[in-house]
């Protein structure tokens, strides 16, 4: 028998083949005919020199964008670019950008969560946008309030461009409200409590919907701002859950559960959307994505509507813009900003709304016929115009939200008194704020 090395060699060969052949699917193909690498700005008529603009998008947004004609229209308007669109799950996008900031491929622009801006800016990874803003002449009042300001980091620079707006409104069942003898939805928190009480029978109908985790956190945030309180102080260095205004909001939150306006018994807490459809919940605080979901449900046609959230001491509610972010290390910044300015055009903003259900961030978009005729879109605009707040520029924003919704869970299930639960939460939040 010969000494046979062949099996070993074959194996090594196979391994080598596998390792070198496996390429990540997200490596963008090298731009064809790339001559002038970074700043080809001239759209040479007849020239085939195109640069690639790499756009990373999360979750559903990516899918909708891919299925739409918007990238194609962008390439029409800006023939010097080829759009490369990549889809990521939300957490994956965050982690990938984070890993890439320490040395790796960065996209030219990506759609992110608003609290990422503070986190990435702290690492020095973002490109300032005020130059872009000035150059294109974007005026503050052409946008929803706070849209640009929200992304001003503690060093005074604005590091992201508003893409869409997050706001919350009160969805309600018009038919059930009528049955109970109400002609209009509540406009103040007191009315909400009164009507909620009337509408709840403790068995199969409750005035207000129960929410979980993130959505509960947003629900509570609204109550806090409506009571003129806040979760953290002005410069984001200390937790303010224990302040009187916020404690009041917490007590109000608790009272909704105690009076069974929101189911007190945990086994009765049905999932929010399904509950609204079943008429189990008469009113629900929620966001723009419900517009799309509700439109799919023909059985509910004409039986629901939306209105601005009831006000308390203030008219404020939870809301914030979501950003387009350009990394400082992007290779095609010109292309990135051109993409952003394309997406900020009012018709495109309107288009995007129709595709995704997300709220435009430029006021001009709302004048588009298709949007102004949608009466259910109006409350979102009104909410934004009345003023919205949210956590911003704090480190560990996600962890802080988790602490808050865990606190809410303790309060509504009567595990801890509001003051005690808030104090405990503030302990944790203060250490999280230290970074």
């Amino acid at each position, binding site marked *: 028998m010969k000494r046979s090395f062949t099996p070993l060699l074959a194996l090594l060969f196979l391994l080598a083949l596998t390792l070198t052949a496996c390429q990540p699917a997200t490596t963008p193909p090298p731009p064809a005919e790339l001559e002038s690498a970074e700043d080809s700005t001239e759209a040479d008529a007849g020239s085939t020199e195109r640069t690639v603009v790499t756009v990373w998008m999360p979750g559903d947004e990516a899918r909708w964008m891919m299925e739409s004609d918007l990238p194609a229209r962008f390439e029409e308007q800006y023939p010097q670019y080829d759009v490369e669109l990549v889809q990521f799950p939300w957490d994956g996008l965050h982690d990938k950008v*984070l890993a890439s900031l320490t040395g790796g491929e960065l996209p030219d622009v990506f759609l992110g969560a608003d609290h990422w801006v503070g986190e990435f800016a702290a690492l020095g990874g973002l490109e300032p946008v005020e130059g872009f803003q000035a150059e294109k002449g974007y005026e503050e009042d052409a946008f929803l309030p706070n849209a640009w300001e929200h992304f001003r980091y503690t060093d005074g620079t604005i590091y992201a461009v508003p893409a869409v707006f997050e706001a919350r409104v009160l969805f309600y069942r018009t038919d059930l409200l009528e049955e109970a003898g109400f002609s209009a939805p509540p406009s103040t928190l007191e009315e909400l409590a009164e009507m909620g009480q009337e509408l709840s029978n403790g068995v199969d109908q409750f005035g207000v919907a129960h929410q979980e985790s993130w959505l509960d956190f947003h629900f509570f945030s609204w109550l806090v701002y409506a009571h003129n309180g806040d979760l953290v102080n002005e410069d984001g260095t200390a937790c303010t859950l224990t302040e009187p205004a916020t404690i009041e909001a917490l007590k109000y939150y608790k009272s909704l559960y105690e009076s069974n306006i929101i189911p007190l018994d945990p086994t009765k*807490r049905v999932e929010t959307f399904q509950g609204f459809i079943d008429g189990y919940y008469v009113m629900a605080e929620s966001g723009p994505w419900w517009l799309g979901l509700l439109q799919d449900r023909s059985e509910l046609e004409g039986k629901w509507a939306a209105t601005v959230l009831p006000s308390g001491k203030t008219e404020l509610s939870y809301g914030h813009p979501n950003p387009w972010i350009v990394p400082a290390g992007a290779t095609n910044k010109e292309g990135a900003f051109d993409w952003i300015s394309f997406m900020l055009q009012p018709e495109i903003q309107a288009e995007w709304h129709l595709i995704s259900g997300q709220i435009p961030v430029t006021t001009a978009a709302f004048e588009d016929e298709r949007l102004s005729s949608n009466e259910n879109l109006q409350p979102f605009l009104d909410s934004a115009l009345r003023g919205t707040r949210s956590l911003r520029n704090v480190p560990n924003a996600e962890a802080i939200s988790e602490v808050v919704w*865990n606190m809410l*869970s303790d309060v509504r299930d009567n*595990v801890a008194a509001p003051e005690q639960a808030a104090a405990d939460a503030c302990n944790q939040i203060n250490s*999280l704020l230290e970074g």
Partner: protein
Amino acid sequence: MRLPLSVDLSTTPPTKAAKVNRHRRERWFIVATLGPALLFLLVYVFYPTLDSFVLSFFQTRLYSKVEFVGLQHYLSVLSDRIFWQALFNTLYYAGGTVIGTVVFGLALALMFERTQLGSTLFRAGVFMPYVIPYAAHTLLWYWLFDPRYGLINIALEWFGINPVPWLQSRAWVIPAFILMSVWKRMGFAMVIFIAGLRAIDDDLLEAAIVDGAGWWQRLWHIILPLLKPMTLFVAVINLIQTLQLFMEPFVMTKGGPSYSSVSIVYLIYQQGFRSINVGRSSAMAVILFILIMVLTLLLMRSFRTSEVQ
């Protein structure tokens, strides 16, 4: 000329050169066969473990070390209420699952060891949950535990028991995890116990019956002691796996309600990949590692001492 490598031939005494050659080839063979495996283990098991130890003593920024802080992370972790909650949850879950798996696996084995007809079908069916990918298993039970439409609460109502808000209740969330895990593992335990039971000498049992030993006595004094190695194996494997509880809190509850379902690995993941406090996360990982070692050793020792008796 092909040279034999390890057998002494009396006909052809090997020359010195041949012997040296043989040794060299042998050494090369040992290196070539052990080398790759050792390399992988070194690079991907030993080095990262040591690195974790090292990282736990440093303040970190993203994934790089910034400054040496000694035991600061350990003190911070050990004084963190949430860590203790996670520890409690993890131990509660591990203990419940190990005990449940052993008890139910043993019960099934005792009941069904002797059946011949259909035993393959039965064994295959009971074992099936064990091969289901864990992620699918977690999602499936997420649905089964739905408070209103889930199968578990529906079944409870047949018996006149009120529905339980499993994953939304502080009291019931860990028992829910335990229930899921016992379901998954008891087939595995049953198979091992059946093999163990089959290995028990029938004569021994016969003699006991003749001596007048009842069923319970036979079980307690003969069967269980003889099954110790099997029990130990099932217990240790399950203990090591369950102390690493992660998927259930991650997928189903995100640690809620209100930290009542956080586990240590869940916190490690959070600290390491969401809050990115690598030093602290490593400290937690080291603590868990020590915990697993200690508990496993304790478990093994407790079996050994009772064996001596």
